[in-house]
């Protein structure tokens, strides 16, 4: 019998605990998919992946397969990737450019907006009205600063309302580009792990695992003469973790220094600093160059080197996609250096990510032990500050 979701969390002044069922119960996972992923605004694509009419990517909203396409009118469509005939997946490619989507089974042809344009051998369908047989589309699609979100079902707030508490941080993220424009690379780092999706989500806003889990990277940076191990420990005392409404949040280090970050403040990037000053002013530049891992609940992280999408597959299987970013208005050499820095820490062969993933699987394993049921997330509660 699945636990009532309300009983999964103990939330008291200095005691915050989550029941293991939240991470291990298939029934809770199904509720998360239906009530959170399928009813909330969820990140689906970046505008730079849909630059021209006909461009598309396929992805998932929770476990639901969708096509995200740029229509001929320039609008973005988010369509359930399921033929209205016999339920075949219509588009099996991860990305591409097309003027229509043709189901391979019986050749039902859909437009970029999902409209059913034609069916083969139509005389066999009698009087079938194609109008209501468009690919099911998301109930809402919206874009903010290049990030495309969709809400699969239901009515609800606008994207503007949804993002109102986190929007300023998204602006700062985009303004790493002096032209306030970011694109993502074609290639991505993709990994999968045998564990719940929330392990990755919670790790991204966990500011106190780095000195331990990433001790190997800290020693590598020390050995290379880049940053002393003691300096990494000192960073732990700066900035903090900020919780926002709606499940959003971020780790913020005003002066950078977290393991794996590109050194934007290096004097060798003086032309970049000058470009930021010209675009936004020197004070804003300081704010822009703070290091942040920004979570837009439930599935999107904005890191300085990449955007990260968490895809739940089942209660104990997750796919993580890291899409490195290219900053517009920045020299190619600097973007290339950012990519090399990203490769060093992130991805399945990086010097950082695999150790994080090891912790996720450790927790997945540990939660199978019975008799101890609660996960403790109370660290910092005693010194938490509220308000702006």
């Amino acid at each position, binding site marked *: 019998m699945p636990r009532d979701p309300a009983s999964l969390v103990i939330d008291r002044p200095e005691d915050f605990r989550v029941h293991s069922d939240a991470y291990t119960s298939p029934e809770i996972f199904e509720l998360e998919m239906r009530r959170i992923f399928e009813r909330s605004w969820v990140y689906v694509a970046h505008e730079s992946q849909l630059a021209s009419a006909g461009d598309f990517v396929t992805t998932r909203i929770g476990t639901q397969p969708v096509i995200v396409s740029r229509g001929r009118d320039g609008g973005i469509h988010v369509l359930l990737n399921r033929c209205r005939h016999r339920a075949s997946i219509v588009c099996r490619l991860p990305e591409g450019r097309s003027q229509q989507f043709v189901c391979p089974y019986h050749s039902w042809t859909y437009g970029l907006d999902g409209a059913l344009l034609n069916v083969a051998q139509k005389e066999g369908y009698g009087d079938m009205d194609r109008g209501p047989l468009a690919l099911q589309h998301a109930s809402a699609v919206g874009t903010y600063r290049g990030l495309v979100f969709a809400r699969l079902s239901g009515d609800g707030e606008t994207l503007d309302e949804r993002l109102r508490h986190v929007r300023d941080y998204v602006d700062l993220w985009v303004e790493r580009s002096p032209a306030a424009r970011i694109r993502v690379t074609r290639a991505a780092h*993709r990994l999968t792990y045998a564990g719940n999706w929330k392990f990755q989500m919670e790790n991204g806003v966990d500011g106190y695992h780095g000195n331990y*889990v990433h001790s190997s990277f800290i*020693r*590598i940076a020390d050995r290379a003469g880049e940053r002393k191990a003691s300096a990494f420990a000192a960073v732990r005392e700066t900035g903090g973790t900020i919780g926002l409404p709606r499940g959003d949040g971020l780790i913020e280090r005003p002066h950078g220094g977290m393991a794996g970050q590109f050194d934007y403040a290096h004097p060798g990037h003086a032309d970049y600093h000058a470009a930021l000053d010209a675009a936004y002013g020197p004070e804003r530049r300081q704010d822009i160059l703070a290091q942040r891992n920004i979570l837009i609940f439930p599935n999107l992280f904005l890191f300085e080197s990449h955007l990260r999408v968490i895809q739940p597959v089942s209660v104990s299987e997750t796919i993580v996609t890291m899409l490195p970013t290219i900053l517009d208005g920045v020299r190619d050499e600097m973007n290339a250096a950012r*990519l090399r820095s990203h490769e060093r820490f992130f991805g399945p*062969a990086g010097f950082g990510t*695999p150790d994080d993933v090891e912790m996720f699987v450790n927790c*997945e394993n540990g939660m199978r032990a019975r008799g101890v049921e609660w996960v403790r997330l109370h660290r910092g509660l005693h010194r938490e500050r509220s308000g702006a």
Partner: protein
Amino acid sequence: MTALDRAAVEAFLFREARLLDEGQFDEWLALFTPDCRYWLPIVQEGGDLEPSIIDDDRVRLEERIFRLQETRAYAQEPPSRTQHNISNVEVTEAGAAAVRVLCNLTLFEVRIGDASQLDLGRPQVLAGRCEYLLVAAPETRIALKKVLLLTRDLPLGNLSFII
């Protein structure tokens, strides 16, 4: 220095594989030139502005070995056991100074531990198309080791061992 023939190239590649499988990482590193590149691309035509799974110059390759040998790399605790199998060796360009080689890599990897724990005791198989540039310097050395994994743009598991 005579150009390497196919038999000599194979012998070299088999030895490289054995060094990795025996965990002789310092000896393996010594096979690479100072200006080497160890490269696992994702897209074939990307240039500098596309990410790779691995794009190590000599410095970063040394960091990779340092991480395995001298640090607490939790993704390698317990460590991987590997078997690198080299086949389909073709010498595509042969000169006195350098040789270009194509071959296939089939790599079995498993982490030995409590097999009831996820991710331990589960062998993974990786297949890749390799391109090597071997130089005679005066002994045979690797200037380029490029591995195009079959699964390079699919979700991958733990790749913290040496491919």
